């Protein structure tokens, strides 16, 4: 097994692979989720308390009225404690925090865990959160080979990178001309640059485009590459992917 990879034996004899997410990204996702659920619970509590009591103050020394308990307190606690379970079950192993961090919970066959497994995983937060600040969970995710906490061990789940690119990569590949004769690595680099074009700084992407064209583009040089605008550089890269190469 490669570092950070979980191999799944399949009936075809070709193993499937999952990229294991480490403790860093796990903590990152948790911190985002924790903030979201605290904000949601507090927002609910304050809004409901205002609606029911007419003020944010709760009666001191007297038991809280049922309307306040069932309308403000219990729903706020439910939001805080059931946030992970409900969202993971509804969003197929993903919470907003995990989505932002780019990870998901997977069963050991690579699929979405069952609701029972997700329930078990969340119940074991009692152990993982002991003695405070998720020390047990963090320690087990640091020291286990698959970087899992006790809840994952009990439920048979893994935290893996959620790669959302495959469909886009294959889609992009299918639009290329079957006659293109660039090396696969060159196709990969050019496609990647074009896909990330808008994310890169203009000077940086222009420099990368010129470097690639200099090495790969057999088209006759009409003007020096330094003189070409960004739009022209991009167009030439796209043409390079589409057109068959001239024999060298």
């Amino acid at each position, binding site marked *: 097994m490669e570092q950070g990879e979980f191999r799944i034996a*399949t009936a075809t004899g070709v193993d499937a692979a999952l990229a294991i997410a480490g403790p860093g990204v796990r903590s990152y996702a948790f911190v985002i989720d924790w903030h979201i659920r605290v904000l949601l619970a507090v927002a609910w509590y304050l809004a409901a308390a205002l609606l029911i009591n007419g003020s944010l103050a709760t009666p001191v020394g007297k*038991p809280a009225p049922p309307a306040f308990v069932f309308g403000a307190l219990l729903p706020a606690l439910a939001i805080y404690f059931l946030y992970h379970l409900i969202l993971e079950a509804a969003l197929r192993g993903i919470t907003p925090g995990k989505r932002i961090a780019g990870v998901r919970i997977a069963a050991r066959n*690579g*699929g979405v865990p069952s609701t029972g497994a997700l329930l078990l995983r969340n119940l074991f937060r009692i152990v993982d959160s002991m003695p405070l600040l998720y020390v047990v969970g963090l320690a087990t995710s640091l020291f286990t080979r698959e970087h899992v906490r006790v809840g994952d061990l009990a439920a048979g789940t893994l935290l893996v990178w959620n790669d959302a690119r495959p469909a886009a990569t294959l889609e992009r590949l299918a639009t290329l001309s079957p006659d293109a004769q660039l090396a*696969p690595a060159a196709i990969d680099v050019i496609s990647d640059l074009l896909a990330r074009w808008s994310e890169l700084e203009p000077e940086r992407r222009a420099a990368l485009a010129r470097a690639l064209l200099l090495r790969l583009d057999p088209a006759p040089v009409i003007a020096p590459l330094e003189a070409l605008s960004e739009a022209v550089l991009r167009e030439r890269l796209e043409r390079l992917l589409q057109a068959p190469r001239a024999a*060298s």
Partner: protein
Amino acid sequence: MSAAQPGSRWLLARAPVWRALAAAAPRLRRGRLSIDEAEQALDGYQSLARDLASARQQLPGNSVTLALESLYTSYHAALSRAPFRAGASLLQLFRSEIPEIVASLRTHLLWIVLLLALSAGAGWLLIATYPELVGLVASREQIDHVEHGELWTENLLNIAPSSILSVRILSNNVMVSVFAVCAGVLYGLGTAYLIALNGLMLGAMFAFTHQHGLDGELLRFVVAHGTVELSVICLAGAAGIALGESLIRPTLATRRESFQHCAGRVGKLLVPCALLLVGCGLIEGYVSPNPAVPFAARLAIGSAYFLFMLALLSGRLFGRGRR
């Protein structure tokens, strides 16, 4: 660079097939395919396996190889997923699985009941011998009430309405049960400690109320809900002990596998336990503190609810054992 790139030609020739497979993947993940679609998916899975093997060899680290890895894993997960029907699965859980799990935990349950009884005896003995130690198990308020000749539960309904009382009690009991199961991860010691502590407090409180002639009142208070509540906590304790045993004496190849298998199995017990504790919470909130309910009615409710629990846990409630 060479004019012809065989790797590229293969890549570009296969690209439309992969695109079609990627487009079909979300539908496959959702399930409910026709037979033709399922067969196509299976063919696609096999062709993906071949292509991935070639890509790993020829184009290691290439983004297309990574995309194929991901697509192949999603096909594998979708095709190896067990069929799921919520209604049938729930019925099977209550009719077959729960009774089988309870039966397999019989020995653990026996030990837990023994531990609870022994610690309750120890608690009684402790307070009977050293009454001044009651502060260890009871709050100042409880002690004051008993010393003034009444149970702390006497005016419970004047302090909080039944609905709030029920929710507070049932959420506390559910938490105790969940903790009893999960604490089993400490080789069963966490669970044993929790059960022993509960038994100790129970025995001590009965001894304390006995010293003030209120033990009959305490029994009157707990008889409607206590039998099922204690039984469920013992059941959760037995599950926790089984979890600990799976780590001490693994039955599968590794401790992790054994623990996971056991957790998946005994974790199912928490479903009926939680349901039964909801009932206990309602009885404890509405019946137990109500002075208008006579002892005979409390006993009848307690006995009926205990029988209901037995029927639920043995699967008879869902037709197990019927021809």
